[in-house]
Structures are given as C-alpha cells and as structure tokens.
C-alpha cells in the first residue's frame, strides 16, 4: 500500500523573488514541423538566462504532444514533472486530477510585482489585457486559469484554384461544404484509360482533410449540434453526427474524399496536382503550394498551380465558425514556491514580443498577444508577403492573416478530464466511415450503431472516469471473460488431479520395485 497521495501544498505567490538562489528549470516543448522552431526556443532560453543568470533552463524537445502527455502522467507519480510544459488544455485537465499538480495562474497573473507586465520584471512582458481574450479564455478550466496561450493557429483550406476553374467553378467568398462536395465530385471524372480528366494522372483525391477530429468538431459546432457540455457530458453520438457521417461516407465512396491517416500529407497531393482542396492547420502553410519552402516530394513531381488560402467550409457562410488551436504553457507545482515563481517568469518571457514574433513567423501561426500582433515588426512581416519564398512566403502569411481576421469567429471545445478521448473519438468516427467505404462496406443504421458503441468503448467514453471515480456497475461478465476464467480454473483442476494421480500411482508402484 505504497501508492498513496503525494500531498503537495497549494502554491502561494511569494512576496519576493529570491535572486540570490539558483534555479534549475526544465521546459518541455514540442518542436513542430520546422527545425527553426528549436532554435527559437534555444534563443529565448539564452536571452532569458542572460537576464536572470541565477535561472538555468533545460530544454527537452518532443515530437508529439501525446508523448508529452504520457511522460507528464508518468512523472506525476515520481514527482518529477517539468516546471514548464507546452501542452494542450485538454491534457491539463487530466493532469489536474491530482491535487495541486498544476499551478493555477490567477494570483500570479494579477501579482503586482511579478504578474503579467509586473513592475519587477526584468523584461517587457505583455499585460493581461494585451493577450488576445479569446485565446486567454481557452486556458480556463473550472473557472481558473491554468495555462497561458503560446501560439495559435486555425485550420485553412488550401485550394488549387486552377483546378476549380478548370472544372468550371469559381470560388465563392466563403467556402461552403456543399460547394466543396460538389466540386470534389466533379473532379472524380475519369478518362477511358483510367487516368483522371482533371490532371491526367493516375491519382486524384479531390478533398483531403488532415485532422478528422477537427473536421467532426467544426461540422458539429457550425450546426450547433451537440458535442459535449462544459462539465464533460458526452453528446457526440447524436443524429447530426450521423448525418455528417452519411455525407462523408457518400463522398468517400466516390473517392472524392480522404483523410490523412488513410492517405498521407495533404500537401503532398496538393503540390503534386492530385488534390483540389486540402484542409490542414495554418501552421502547416509552409508546405503548401508549388513554391513552398518545404516539400516532401520529388521536385519533378511538383506541378505549378495557383494556390488560394481560405477559411474552412461553413454551413452558414454568414456566421463562420472555426476552431482555435495551438499550444499553451502550463506550470507544474513544486515544493519550493520560489521555483514556481521562476517558472512563471520564464513562461511570461515566452510571451514577449520577440519570442512571439520569431516563433509565429516560422509557420502560419499567430502571436497570442496584441502587443506582438500590433508590433511594427510583425506588421512589417505581414506586409512583405510574397517577397520571397521563405521568410515571407505568401501562403504562410495568408494563413496567418486568415486567423488574424477571424479571431472573433474562433471557438474552442470544453476542456475536462477525458476531452482528449472525446476529440480522438470524433476523428475516429470519420476515419472508420471513410475506411469502410473504401472497403465497399455498407454504411447504414446498423453500421452506425455498431460504430458508435465501438468508438465509445475504444475511448472509454461510456464510463465515468472522474478523478474521485467510483466503482462503476460493470454488469455481468462478458461470455468471453467467463470462458477464460472457467478454462483457467478447469485446467488447473485437471493439472492438480493429474499430479495427484501420478503421486498415487508412484506410491502404489513403489513396493513392487
């Protein structure tokens, strides 16, 4: 019985930051799709350490948010969590099932000396009001701030405009789902020799959606259908979802639609002239277009085309809705409040204009502070769109501007312990349906019911995993489990009987020998 609670006292902001002591902090970050991001982190750390020579920061880079999540979870048990960590709010909700694991930031933010823009800071930090409110709001869990936003992006639709026009369509001001489906269907026409009319190649996937969980979430939210409540009640298994899935199934059946998991990176297809609509994060903009600074495919496979960056398709073009996503920063609690304070200082430093600017320009990200967004340097950056195909790559800047222009239209989904699973489940529904269609299975009511229950089970959505969880009533043992237990029992009885029989016969035989 050694796995009891590791009680940690709640954090209280110290009066004074003790500059006479040395602090060693760990910072877990994800380096995204670009090696330059690593350098920016390192630069930021170096600059910060120059300001605070008594604080040293160790950077550990991950390639996947999931890995960060897993490692944090395992490190909670050994009390070796990092000090600062880049993560999704969803994950924070799970970290918080332990008491006082994650530091609530309300007091810190408001602290006069060391709070946001506080007067004892050695650098120019943004004030609370300078953080884009929508983005900051995303960081509240149960009424408290548990994170600061670090970068934000949304999804964009990258379009091969040439193809759309070749098919006889013109792009509307705001994309609608109907438009996309229609054009995509039209693009599936084939020549007699099996090649596609549109591009003359063997391959054409008119519409690829990279992140199917976002696809499902946005489609539901755009229709005001149920996804989940704030408190974590799951509503995704509803009729709207079914309708969506039927639609997707229909277009997957005609091969007009595919996903990243099934095919591959949308950018590869788009650039190779094998795709018309590619929906991917704005953070992936540097890969998109024939002049993209980063390409995955052979140069000779890239086709020349006019690219258009637009907001994701909508059901109601007048009230566009799109997801806001991107990493946030959270701070883990430590026994030493001074250490937490040091972490907080570093966290704030990551919101300073330079860091924000530098990081945002690596990809189609948007700085989370108004200060950075409005800074001259950033404006200058935006204005130089298209100057070259690297730093000022037009698609990348267009993607950033997309979010800047639609900040009001972004939304986020409720965060609770289990929201990650729900998100995964949402994507899984689309993946499954698409896969089934490609295998020529029939997608009907029975299929849907089955799908719902399987996905619910897979992500443990059918049970209560609240932290103070109680034994759920699990019902009778499934027949297979029963079979397993009975088989084991019977086998052991037989083994014991056999051994006893052997002993008896050995004893009986003994006198004869």
């Amino acid at each position: 019985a050694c796995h009891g609670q590791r009680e940690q006292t709640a954090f209280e902001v110290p009066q004074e930051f003790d500059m006479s002591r040395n602090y060693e902090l760990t910072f877990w970050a994800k380096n995204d799709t670009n090696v330059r991001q690593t350098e920016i982190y390192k630069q930021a750390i170096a600059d910060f350490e120059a300001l605070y020579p008594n604080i040293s920061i160790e950077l550990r880079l991950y390639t996947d948010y999931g890995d960060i999540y897993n490692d944090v979870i395992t490190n909670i048990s050994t009390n070796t969590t990092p000090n600062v960590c880049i993560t999704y709010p969803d994950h924070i909700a799970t970290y918080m099932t332990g008491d006082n694991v994650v530091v609530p930031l309300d007091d810190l933010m408001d602290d006069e000396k060391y709070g946001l823009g506080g007067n004892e800071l050695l650098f120019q930090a943004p004030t609370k009001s300078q953080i884009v409110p929508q983005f900051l709001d995303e960081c509240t869990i149960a009424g408290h701030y548990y994170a600061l936003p670090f970068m934000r992006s949304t999804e964009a639709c990258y379009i091969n405009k040439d193809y759309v026009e070749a098919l006889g369509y013109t792009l509307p001001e705001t994309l609608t789902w109907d438009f996309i489906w229609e054009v995509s269907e039209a693009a599936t026409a084939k020549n007699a020799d099996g090649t596609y009319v549109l591009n003359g190649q063997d391959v054409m996937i008119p519409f690829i959606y990279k992140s199917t969980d976002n696809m499902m979430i946005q489609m539901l939210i755009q229709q005001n259908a149920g996804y989940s409540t704030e408190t974590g009640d799951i509503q995704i298994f509803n009729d709207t979802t079914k309708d969506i899935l039927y639609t997707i199934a229909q277009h997957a059946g005609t091969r007009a639609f595919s996903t990243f998991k099934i095919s591959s990176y949308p950018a590869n297809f788009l650039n190779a002239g094998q795709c018309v609509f590619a929906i991917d994060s704005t953070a992936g903009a540097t890969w998109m277009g024939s002049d993209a600074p980063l390409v995955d495919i052979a140069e000779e496979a890239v086709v020349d085309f006019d690219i258009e960056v637009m907001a994701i398709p909508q059901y109601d073009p007048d009230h566009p809705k799109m997801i806001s996503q991107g990493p946030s920063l959270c701070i883990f609690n430590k026994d030493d409040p001074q250490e937490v304070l040091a972490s907080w200082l570093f966290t704030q430093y990551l919101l300073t204009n330079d860091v924000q600017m530098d990081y945002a320009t690596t990809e189609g990200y948007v700085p989370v502070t108004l200060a950075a967004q409005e800074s001259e340097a950033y404006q200058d950056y935006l204005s130089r769109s298209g100057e070259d195909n690297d730093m000022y790559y037009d698609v990348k800047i267009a993607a950033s501007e997309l979010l800047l222009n639609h900040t009001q239209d972004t939304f986020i989904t409720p965060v609770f312990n289990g929201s990650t699973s729900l998100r995964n489940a949402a994507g899984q529904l689309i993946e499954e349906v698409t896969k089934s269609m490609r295998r020529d299975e029939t997608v009907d009511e029975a299929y849907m019911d089955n799908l719902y229950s399987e996905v619910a089970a897979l992500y443990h959505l059918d049970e209560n995993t609240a932290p103070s969880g109680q034994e759920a009533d699990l019902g009778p043992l499934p027949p297979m489990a029963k079979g397993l237990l009975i088989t084991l029992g019977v086998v052991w009885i037989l083994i014991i009987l056999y051994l006893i029989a052997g002993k008896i016969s050995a004893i009986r035989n003994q006198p004869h020998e």
Partner: protein
Amino acid sequence: MEEHEVYEKIQHKTNHRNKIQKAVTYIFLTLWALIVLFPFYWMILTSVKSYGAYNAEHTPAFFTLSPTIQNYIDAFTTVPLVGYLLNTAIFAVATTVIMVIVSTLAAYAFARLNFRGKNLVFTLFLSLMMIPSELVVITNFVTVTNLDLRNTFVGLVLPSVTSVFYIYLLKENFEQVPDELYRAAKVDGTSDLKYLWKVMIPICRPTIITITILKIIECWNSYVWPRLITDDPAYYLVSNGIQEIRENGFGRENIPAMMAAVVVISVPLIVLFLIFRKKIMAGVSQGGTKG
C-alpha cells in the same frame, strides 16, 4: 542374373528420387532465404532513395537508378547519431559486462555449489522468465527516479542487468563441465573463485561469448526503458534516435532517412555477428542441448 537387373532398376529409381529431393530442398531453402533477405534489401534500397522520390513513387520501385547518400548525411546531421551510437556502445558494454559477471557468479552457484534451497531458488528464478518486462518498467521507473538516477548511465544500466535466461543458459553449460575438473582443482589447491576464473570460464567461453553478444544485441535494440529514463539527449540511445529521425527529419515521417539510420545502427551488430557467427551458434546450441 535377372534379380540383379531388378536391383539395378530400383537403384536407379532411388538415385533419381534423391536428386529430386535435393532440388526441392534447395528451392525451398532459397525461397526462405529470399524472404529473409528481402526486408534487408528493401531497407538498404529505401535508404538510398531520395526523400522526395520516395514520397512521389507511384509504384514501389525495386531498384533505384539514382542512389543518394543524402539520407545518411541527414541521419548523422539531423540528430547527433554519432553521440547516440557512442551512448549505446557505453550502455551496451556496461550492461553486458555487469550482466555477464553477475550471471556467471549466479550460474556458478547453481551449477557447482551445493546449498540448501538451491532448487527452490532456481525454480523461482525460472518462473521470473515468464514475466513480461513491460510490467516491471513502471515500478523500476519510480525506483530509479527516487534514487535520482535519471539521465545517468547508472540508471540506464542497472535495471537492464538482470537476465534470468542467461543465468539459465550458463548454468546448463557449466553443468556440462565434468565434476572431476572441480575436484582436480580442489586437490591442486584452487579456490572456488579461481577455479571459476581459470577453468570454468575458459571452458565455457563459447557460451559466454554468445550471451555477451545476445545481450549486446538486446541492449542495442532496447527502446522502452531508455526512452522513459532519459530526457536528456546527451543520454539518448540509437533506438531513440531512430524514432526521432522517423518523426523529426523535416518534422515528417522521413522513412528513407530512418532507414539510413537503421542501416547505420544495424551494421555494427551484423558485423559483430558475422565475426562471431560460429561461436554464437555453438554457444546457443550448447546451452540449449539440455533443454
């Protein structure tokens, strides 16, 4: 004389059958050899395809006309592969050395010395073979962390040292050394430890070489534990490296570069194996013969 001719016919038929049998055997063996070799061929082939060409391939190509060593360069530059190789070498050697010493002592105790409870302890040892290592990782992680040994070679090595199977293999092997030698050495005034060192180990050298190499292979490929226990790239092993390259090349799954990395890290093992092939085979079979 007639009977004689019948014999000749039978003889002829037998010869014919033998030939067919030979041919079938060779075909079968060759077929399996191809199945075995193909993934290796594919690995090497992919490692010399350029990233772009690989991604734009419409049908998998069985050969490439424009091999590139870019992937190898990438493998060495995007991650500090040399450092990882070095780490892995240190880790593998340290683990193996300790493991061999510990296992040899234990196997010697089981094979040569008599003490109460020997059979019981040995049975318990053997039953530990049934435990999947994934199971104990988590507690070990806690232990090692509490000992403050994360991101140290000590932390990497210690839990990897235990190896019931090798103790078992060695014990079986030791038992095949005639008891007489032990008695002779005793009469000659040799201590137990000296006997172990001067007689037992030299005689069982093939097996010891075998377990050494098998353990090195195991260490070389180990992934779960190193990943968990190191978060400092200064202690990363090659398997972490592969995983990193796999995802990290350009932030995307860069399979050719990964294959290049795999080729690079496999080469030492394959060379090691080719050098000690005879000894490994002899050792494994010797240890195994008693089942």
